[in-house]
């Protein structure tokens, strides 16, 4: 048995109000989320002795965010730091927290994120490329990398824009059942098809939101977690992998590291795709979700287009995904809310959008220019 399987747990989750929050800052939203997660866990602030943070795109202190946040909430942690991996950060910090409590570096680690990207101005349109920027040729913005994936997937496998639309429609349907989601009005495939092009082949409704909000997740050992307020949510499997070579690696567009991250998480948890009751799959763009199904072994390479049709990924289907609405419709918290929803599904506290009998939830993250990937298996204790 893997020495880390089921050894740690998520014991508190909290999210601030989401959307466009007047007068909010990245810091104020993170603090509110922290307070709510503390309340959810039943822990006192004095028990938090580990602090891991992701600075928001609007956090002026950037990688010194852990100092700013720690001072604001009055924590002098035994273990701390900040990490910047875009949508790959939430999962990476969750794993780091699990390793830290398992090693005894800290007893209770709060992982925190806040951003005021809607109010403070989006920073997601920059160009990639070291040295000569790809902006010389007009290649810029996060959407473009995912459009490269979508266009090649369509060319190789015949995947269609309507199939991408299935993902957008499913996420929006789930958001319609989530009172805390930002975009709750249901959409149709036709709405998706009629939404304007952003970077073709991606439409507006293939793209995530830009949101203000904060999220906090508190991690401790499985042993300590049994004394906390809510039902036990074990961290059963964890995996991460990265591709840094955007240009040198021919299959970079296909995000091959996702497969490695998933395989490691499955192996640690001793589960496979058939065991997953519900999945929170990182959805900065709809095309990102397609690739998760293939790398996660839910369907064969190139077959994710047909896989998402016919209600399979909606509540009541074979594999409901992004049951709170995801980055596409709940709020763009760069994957942090995927962990929150994963924990809530396993606890069985999701009301109308609860997947009946959900015991094993897969949560994934990815970030930067398709560079970072992680996967986590949460299991009912």
């Amino acid at each position, binding site marked *: 048995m893997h020495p880390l399987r089921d050894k740690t747990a998520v014991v508190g989750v909290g999210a601030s109000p989401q959307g466009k929050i007047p007068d909010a800052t990245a810091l104020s939203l993170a603090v509110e989320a922290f307070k709510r997660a503390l309340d959810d866990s039943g822990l006192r602030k004095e028990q938090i002795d580990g602090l891991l943070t992701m600075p928001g795109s609007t956090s002026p202190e950037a990688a010194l965010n852990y100092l700013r946040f720690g001072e604001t909430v009055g924590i002098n942690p035994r273990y701390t730091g900040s990490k910047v991996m875009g949508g790959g950060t939430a999962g990476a910090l969750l794993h780091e927290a699990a390793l830290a409590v398992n090693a005894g570096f800290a007893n209770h680690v709060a992982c925190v994120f806040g951003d005021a990207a809607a109010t403070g101005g989006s920073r997601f349109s920059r160009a990639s490329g070291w040295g000569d920027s790809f902006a*010389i040729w007009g290649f810029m913005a996060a959407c473009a990398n995912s459009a490269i994936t979508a266009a090649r997937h369509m060319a190789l496998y015949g995947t269609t824009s309507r199939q991408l639309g299935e993902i957008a429609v499913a996420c929006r349907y789930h958001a319609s059942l989530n009172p805390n989601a930002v975009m709750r009005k249901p959409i149709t495939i036709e709405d998706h098809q009629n939404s304007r092009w952003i*970077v*073709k*082949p991606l439409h507006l409704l293939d793209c995530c939101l830009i949101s203000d909000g904060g999220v906090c997740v508190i991690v401790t050992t499985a042993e300590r977690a049994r004394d906390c307020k809510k039902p036990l949510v074990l961290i059963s499997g964890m995996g991460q992998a990265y591709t840094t070579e955007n240009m040198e690696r021919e299959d970079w567009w296909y995000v091959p590291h996702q497969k490695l991250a998933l395989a490691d998480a499955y192996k640690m948890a001793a589960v496979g795709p058939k065991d997953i009751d519900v999945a929170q799959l990182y959805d900065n763009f709809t095309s990102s979700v397609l690739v998760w199904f293939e790398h996660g072994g839910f369907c064969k390479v190139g077959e994710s287009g047909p896989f998402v049709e016919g209600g399979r990924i909606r509540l009541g289907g074979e594999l409901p995904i992004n049951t709170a609405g995801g980055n596409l419709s709940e709020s763009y918290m760069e994957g942090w809310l995927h962990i929150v929803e994963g924990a809530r599904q396993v606890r069985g506290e999701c009301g109308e959008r609860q997947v009946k009998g959900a015991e094993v939830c897969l949560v994934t993250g990815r970030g930067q220019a398709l560079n970072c990937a992680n996967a986590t298996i949460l299991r009912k204790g």
Partner: protein
Amino acid sequence: MSEYTKPLPTITDENREFWEGARRGKLRMQKCRDCGHIRYPISHCCPKCLSYNFEWTDLSGRGEVFSYVVFHQLYNQAFKDDVPYNVALVQLEEGPRMYSNVVGVDNDAVKVGDKVEAVFDPVTPEVTIPRFRLRQPAK
């Protein structure tokens, strides 16, 4: 002729051969003197064998469209007269891939897998940007 306001490279000792090559109508990249790997983006170090020894080599300029997108959203005001404009990820015959634009045809006329060849677009007296055009099918 109006002033060129879109992003331009800053010419340095590291990238000068690439941009001087483009001015002379040649696509040039770095070839490792130790392992022979042709690399892109430009770097002082071979990502395969870590050697610092390299030479600049002329490429054929031929390749094919590896992936292809069309920007409708305006992310940078300098492109406001260009949208919708295309960007192709081009697979070069010699191995490397690079981003560029396919010129001379409608955006909708380009598909993944199309054969392309480099053309050179002088945008300022100092800078010529390599772009690509569709190659005629072989006779």
